[in-house]
């Protein structure tokens, strides 16, 4: 596989200039994520209003894939309900693991497409965890209520 399919322009751009980067002081939820295999670390901050995500940010350090994935994730989950964010995660997960695609509701298709550039990792099994770290951490933040949670991918 051509490396440019893995390292697409979007990935390099978000890797170099991550969006929504930095702590969120009035976060209602946050969690730390860690990939002990490579040392990647990410903290996801979310501010909920009812069941709507009004703000999502992240902090940490990692490879281009994990940074771009966190950056794109914070963009697409913003202004979504928790159920919508979960649908995006399920769809994204099958994209990067090469599993059977789970269809997205029409209203979320554009957001699903925005995550498409990360689908290249499915040809690199050792790198799937890099793409999913931010999402698993996001999920942990949501499930832990407002208490700090830690997630590990190995």
């Amino acid at each position, binding site marked *: 596989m051509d490396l440019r399919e893995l390292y697409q322009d979007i990935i390099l751009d978000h890797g170099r200039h991550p969006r929504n980067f930095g702590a969120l002081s009035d976060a209602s939820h946050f969690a730390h994520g860690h990939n002990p295999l*490579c*040392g*990647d670390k990410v903290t996801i901050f979310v501010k909920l209003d009812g069941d709507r995500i009004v703000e999502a940010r992240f902090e940490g350090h990692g*490879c*281009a894939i994990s940074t771009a994935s966190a950056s794109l994730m914070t963009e697409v989950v913003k202004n979504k309900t928790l159920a919508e964010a979960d649908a995006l995660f399920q769809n994204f997960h099958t994209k990067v693991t090469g599993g059977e695609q789970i269809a997205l509701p029409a209203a979320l298709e554009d957001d699903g497409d925005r995550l498409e550039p990360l689908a290249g990792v499915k040809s690199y099994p*050792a790198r799937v965890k*890099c793409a999913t770290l931010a999402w698993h951490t996001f999920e942990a933040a949501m499930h832990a209520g407002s208490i700090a949670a830690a997630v590990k991918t190995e």
Partner: protein
Amino acid sequence: MTMLAPLRPVAGNSFDVAWIRREFPVFERNPGLVFLDTAASAQKPRSVIDGIAEFYRSDYANVHRGVYGLSARSTARFEGARETVRRFLNAADVSEIVFVRGATEGLNLVAQSWGATFLKPGDQVLLSALEHHSNIVPWQQLRDRLGLELVIVPLDSSGGLDVAAFERLLTPRTRLVAITHIANVTGHVVPAAALVRLAHARGAKILLDGCQAVPRLPVDVQALDCDFYVLSGHKCYGPTGIGVLYAKRAILDAMPPWQSGGDMITTVTFERTTYQEPPQRFEAGTPDISGAIGLALALDFMDQVGRTTIRDHEQALTRYARDRLATMPGVSVVGAGSECLGVVSFTVDGVHPHDLATIFDQSNVAIRAGHHCAQPLMDTLGLAATARASFGIYSDESDVDALVTAIRAAQRLFDRPVQG
């Protein structure tokens, strides 16, 4: 028993890498492989691979038990392997060679048997900032159990062990020093013999973790005068699942058994058991018989190549790699100094080590990326991850050149202008 094809004579100090490579089937099966991850585990020569299979075909039975001929042969091969290790490390006596699963198990054995018996609350164990997790965590667990204090020797400005600080941190409360002989992240060689003298002058015992040193340096435990030495077979061209704990006989004599079961006892009644002498006291259960034999074959292989020849080769190649990487724009080599052997860690501006490893893999260049099981060292260096290239007896300058080309390709891929 398979014999090694005769080593082609080499002129002076020159090293016939092409001959060596032909002895490693992995290169035949994986044409174009640029293997730069020997510090994680070395590839295996034909004599080891075939020798293990041949042993199973011809001489295999359980050891130390049967009266029949086959078992006697198997026992002779197994104990012969122990003698090979003794000779290789120049231990004074064969009973000082304990077979374990690997360095990790050797370190745990020392911590749990010697440490738990002879260390008391308030005693200090001196470690260094260079250590692999396997020479940190067993001591932490013992600290928490016994109330010990762990003292960490810092790095000097070159990223090697700060010997002046080592001397300063040795106190009358230091009972054990446990230090790597060669750092697995940066390749720094510690001045082992000097550290042993300093430790002994203060009445402390000293353990050296020889995982990275044994495949690269002639090691003589009597000349070093260390109390304990551990190594992993798979890092010196032998099989996985086997390693060695060397300890001075008087120390082993005073150590209680660690794991218990068959083979380590002399008599057992339901009331009481008496234990074997070292080394059997520390080898409960059926040992890794073929592993020990494979390890001995690997050590024979290294001896045949010549251990000073191997050291000179690794030294020249490490210097070549460090020099080439150091002159590349955007590349930083971790740690300075000529004292590094066999391992080069580096970072590339703008490309995370994990991405480097993926990109290199596309051109068949296998390196390691991450924290290399030495997170405290990475914290000290202020790095989350590095890329690491490491060498073996089959590595040569063409491997380093392929690495340089792969780094340039990664820089081109990542430095390109992109549309946001």
